[in-house]
C-alpha cells in the first residue's frame, strides 16, 4: 500500500501541531483483505528440457526447432541448442509448445458436473447487488471438469459467479491443479475479480419479481446506487485511517462485506469482469467507471465488441469473446465470426477468447482456430504466434497476472503445454501439461492423469 508513507508523515505532523499522545489511541482497525489465503504448493518437479519443438511464446513470436528449459518452476530459457545438466529431456520434434492456456471465464466448481441442485452454487439470485459473495466459497474442487480442462491445456482459470445480478460477487483465479481444498488451488497473489452483468439477465430476473431492475435504465441505476454507497464507505474508512494517522482516536466505520468489495474496486485492487454483450452498454459501463473513478476492466461475452473496437482500445478495456455463440438471446444476435479479430486489429487492443463452458474450456485452442481461419478467409492475415496471445498473454493481462504467467519468457511461471501438432488443428491434443514446472498431465502416462474423487469407482 502506497498509503503508508503519507500517513507516517501525517503522524509526525500531527504530533507537532496537535501534540496529543498516540498512547490514547485504541488499536487500529484494519480490514484483512486476504482472509482465505492460498495454500498452493508446487507439485513435484524437476529441471526439464523440451527439445526441438515449434514454440509459440505468447509474446507474438514463433521459434522453430526451439528448446524450452524449465528450472525451479520457472521458464529458464527459450532458444535453440539449449542444454542443462541433469535435466529431464523430452524430445518434442514435430510438436508444438505454447504457454499454459488461461480461461478468464469459467464456472467450474461452482456449476460442476454432474449438474445437481445440490451443487448449483454459482448465482446468488437473492438481490441484484451481491458484491458480498465470493465465488471461491462455492468452489467444489472435485468437479471432474477441472481435470478435463487440464487435459485441454488449461493451467489457470478464473471462476466467476453467474450473471443473474448487476453485481454478482467476487471471482477467484485458480491454478488448475487437483486439490481437496479451494485454497490449495488459489493462484498466489492474483488480484480478485468482481463480476458485473449488463443487459438481459439481471433485468429479466428481477423484473419478473417486480423488483428493480426491470429495465436497462434500472440496471444503470442499480450500479450507480451501489457505487455511491461504496464511495461513502470508502470515504468513511479513508477518514478513519487519516484521523488515526493524525493521532486521533476515531471510531472505525461499521464493516460492510458488500461495500468492502466495492471499495476494493475503487482502490484498484479488484478488477472488473463485466458480462456485457452490447456496444451501447459497454460504452456506458466505461463511463460508469469514470463516474466513480475505477477502471471498467474486461467485458465478457462481448458479442458486439467489434462495433466499438476503437473505444475499447482507447480506454484500455479487454474484451473476452466466443468465436461463434449467438442467437440464444437478443443481445447475442449480432455475432460475427471475426469479432475477436476485429477487436484485436486495433492498436493497444486486448482481445481474449473465453469459454464460459465446461465443454469448450477444454478446447480454447480450437475456439481460437475457428476465429483465425474465418478471419483469414475474409481479409485478415493472422498467424498462430499472434492468436495464441488471445488465450495466454491477453488473458493473463485481463486477470492481472501477466507478470507471473501467460508467456514463455525467462522468469515467468513455467506453465507450459506440449501439443502433438499445430494447436490450431482440429486433430491437436495436449500431450503434456506443466504448471510451475511440475508435470500435471501426460496423455501417454496414467500416472499423470488425475481423476476426481467423484469419478473414482463409477461403473
Amino acid at each position, binding site marked *: 500500500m502506497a498509503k503508508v508513507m503519507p500517513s507516517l508523515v501525517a503522524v509526525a505532523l500531527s504530533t507537532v501541531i496537535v501534540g496529543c499522545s498516540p498512547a490514547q489511541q485504541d488499536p487500529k482497525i484494519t480490514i484483512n483483505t486476504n482472509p482465505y489465503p492460498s495454500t498452493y504448493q508446487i507439485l513435484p518437479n524437476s529441471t526439464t528440457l523440451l527439445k526441438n519443438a515449434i514454440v509459440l511464446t505468447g509474446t507474438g513470436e514463433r521459434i522453430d526447432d526451439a528448446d524450452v528449459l524449465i528450472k525451479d518452476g520457472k521458464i529458464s530459457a527459450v532458444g535453440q541448442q539449449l542444454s542443462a545438466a541433469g535435466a529431464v529431456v523430452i524430445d518434442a520434434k514435430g510438436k508444438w509448445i505454447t504457454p499454459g492456456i488461461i480461461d478468464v471465464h469459467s464456472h467450474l466448481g461452482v456449476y460442476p458436473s454432474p449438474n445437481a441442485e445440490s451443487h448449483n452454487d454459482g448465482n446468488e439470485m437473492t438481490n441484484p447487488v451481491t458484491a458480498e459473495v465470493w465465488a471461491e466459497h462455492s468452489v467444489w474442487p472435485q468437479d471432474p471438469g477441472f481435470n478435463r480442462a487440464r487435459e485441454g491445456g488449461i493451467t489457470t482459470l478464473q471462476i466467476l459467479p453467474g450473471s443473474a445480478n448487476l453485481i454478482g460477487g467476487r471471482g477467484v483465479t485458480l491454478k488448475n491443479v487437483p486439490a481437496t481444498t479451494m485454497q490449495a488451488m488459489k493462484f498466489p497473489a492474483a488480484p480478485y475479480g468482481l463480476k458485473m452483468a449488463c443487459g438481459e439477465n439481471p433485468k429479466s430476473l428481477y423484473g419478473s419479481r417486480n423488483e428493480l431492475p426491470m429495465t436497462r435504465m434500472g440496471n444503470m441505476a442499480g450500479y450507480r446506487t451501489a457505487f455511491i454507497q461504496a464511495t461513502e464507505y470508502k470515504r468513511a474508512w479513508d477518514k478513519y485511517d487519516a484521523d488515526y494517522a493524525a493521532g486521533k482516536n476515531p471510531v472505525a466505520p461499521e464493516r460492510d462485506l458488500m461495500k468492502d468489495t466495492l471499495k476494493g474496486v475503487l482502490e484498484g485492487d479488484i478488477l472488473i469482469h463485466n458480462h456485457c454483450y452490447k456496444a451501447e452498454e459497454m460504452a456506458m459501463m466505461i463511463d460508469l467507471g469514470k463516474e466513480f473513478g475505477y477502471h471498467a476492466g474486461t467485458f465478457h461475452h462481448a458479442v458486439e465488441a467489434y462495433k466499438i473496437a476503437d473505444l475499447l482500445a482507447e480506454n484500455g478495456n479487454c474484451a473476452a469473446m466466443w468465436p461463434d455463440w449467438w*442467437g440464444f438471446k437478443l443481445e447475442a444476435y449480432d455475432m460475427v465470426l471475426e469479432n475477436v479479430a*476485429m477487436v484485436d486489429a486495433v492498436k493497444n487492443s486486448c482481445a481474449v477468447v473465453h469459454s464460459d463452458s465446461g*465443454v469448450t474450456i477444454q478446447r480454447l485452442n480450437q475456439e481460437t*482456430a475457428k476465429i483465425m481461419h474465418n478471419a483469414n478467409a475474409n481479409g485478415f492475415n493472422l498467424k498462430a504466434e499472434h492468436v495464441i496471445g488471445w488465450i495466454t498473454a491477453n488473458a493473463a493481462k485481463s486477470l492481472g497476472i501477466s507478470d507471473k504467467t501467460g508467456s514463455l519468457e525467462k522468469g515467468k511461471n513455467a506453465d507450459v503445454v506440449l501439443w502433438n501438432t499445430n494447436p490450431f488443428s482440429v*486433430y491437436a491434443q495436449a500431450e503434456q501439461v506443466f504448471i510451475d514446472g511440475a508435470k500435471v498431465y501426460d496423455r501417454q502416462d496414467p500416472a499423470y492423469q488425475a481423476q476426481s474423487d467423484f469419478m473414482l469407482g463409477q461403473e
Partner: protein
Amino acid sequence: MTLFNKSALALSLSMSLALVTSAVKAETIAIIHATVHTATEQGVLKDASVVIEDGKIVAINPLLPTADTIIDAKGAILTPGFIASMNDLGLVEIGAVASSRDAYEKEADVVFDPSLAYNPKASSVPFARKGGITRNVVSSGGGEGIFAGQTFTVDLSGDWDSILAANTGLVVALGAKEEGSRAAGMQQLIHKLEDAKKAQAKKSKTKKTAEDDSEVPSREDEIIHAVLAGEKPLIIDVDRASDILHLIKLKQDLGIDLILVNAADAVLVADKLAQANIPVVIDSMRNLPESFDALHNSLENAGKLANAGVKVAIALPGDSHGIYALRFSAGNAVANGMNYDDALAAVTANVADIFHLDSGRIAVGKSADLVLWSGDPFEFSSKVQKMWIAGEEQSTDSRQDKLRDRYLHKTAMPEAYSR
C-alpha cells in the same frame, strides 16, 4: 473456380441427346478433377468427375463428362452435403424471445407436427450452410410428457419449399426426470406400443366377421401402427445404459425401427446395440459426467461405438444456431479414435440411412447435395468453396457477413448507411 465452356464435342453430344429426350432440358453440371469422398464402398475417388442433372447425381466418372457447366475442382475434396439431425434449426430465431421460438410445446404429444412452425428464412439457416450442411432432420424440443411429436426433414436451401417430408419419425424422451420416476415414462411407452399391438391383433381376428368395419383410426393410432409396422422410426432420446437395455428388448419384442439419440452411456452396451442393429445419434463433443445418467460421456465414444459395429450419426442434438460446427465434431471424433471414413459417414451416409433420406452419398441416383471444400472438411483451416442442394448452387453468405463488412469498411458516414 474455373468455369470451362463446353467443348464442341460436348455441345454436339448434348444437342443430340436433347433431340432424343425432350426439347426442354435441365441444366447439367459436371464437377471434374475432384477428390471425391463418396461415403460409399467406393471410398475416395481421385481425379474423378461427378455429373448432376435434374437435381440428381447421374454419372460418376463417365468416359467423357459433358455438361452445360463444367467446374474444375483442381483436386479439391468433394463430399456429400453434410446432414444435421435432431436439432431445432428453423424453429427458433432467438432462444430467449418467446415470440420467436416454436421448438418447445408444453402439450406436445404423439401427433404434434413441428414442421408447421418451420421458418426456412430463419437467419440461422444460411449460417448453418457455412458448415457444408445441406439437409437437416428437425425435431421439436418436446414438452412435459415423454412424446415430443414428430421429426421432419428439410433441405437447407432456405427456399419456401424446403420441407422435404413431415412426420417422418416419432420422438420420445426418456430417462432422468425433474419430478417422479423414470419408470413411469418407460412404462408409458411400453404400454402404448404393446396395447396398440394387442388391439391390432384383436381387430384382425374379428375383422373376418365384420368386413365393413368403417371405423376411422385416430391420428395417434395411425402413427403408433406405423411405428409397430416398422414404417416409422421410433427416435428415443435417452442416456443411461439401464434404460437403453429396456429399449433393446422393446425392439426385439416388437420389431420396430429404433433410433437412439444422445445415448451418453451407450458405450457400456455397445455390443448389444450393434447386435440389435440399433443406430445411435451422438453428440461427440459431450465429455463431462453431466448427470448420473451420463457418467461415461467421452470424446472417444463415437469411435468406440463405431468400432463395436454400431451405426453412428454425429449430431448437435437440441442446438439451433451452432450446427454449422458439425464438421468440427466429426474432426474431434477422429482426433479421439474414430476412423476418418466412419466420421465422414457419421455426418453423411449414416444419417441418411438412419433417417431414410435419398442423400448422403455420392452415388448415381442420389440427390445432388454436394460440397466442394478448400481442404480437409473437418479442419478449421478449410471452408466451403461451393455447395449444391439438389443440384442448385447455394450461397454461404449470411447476415453475419453483412454485419462484419459494415464495421470493417468504415466511411465518414455512420455504419447505418452501408449495406
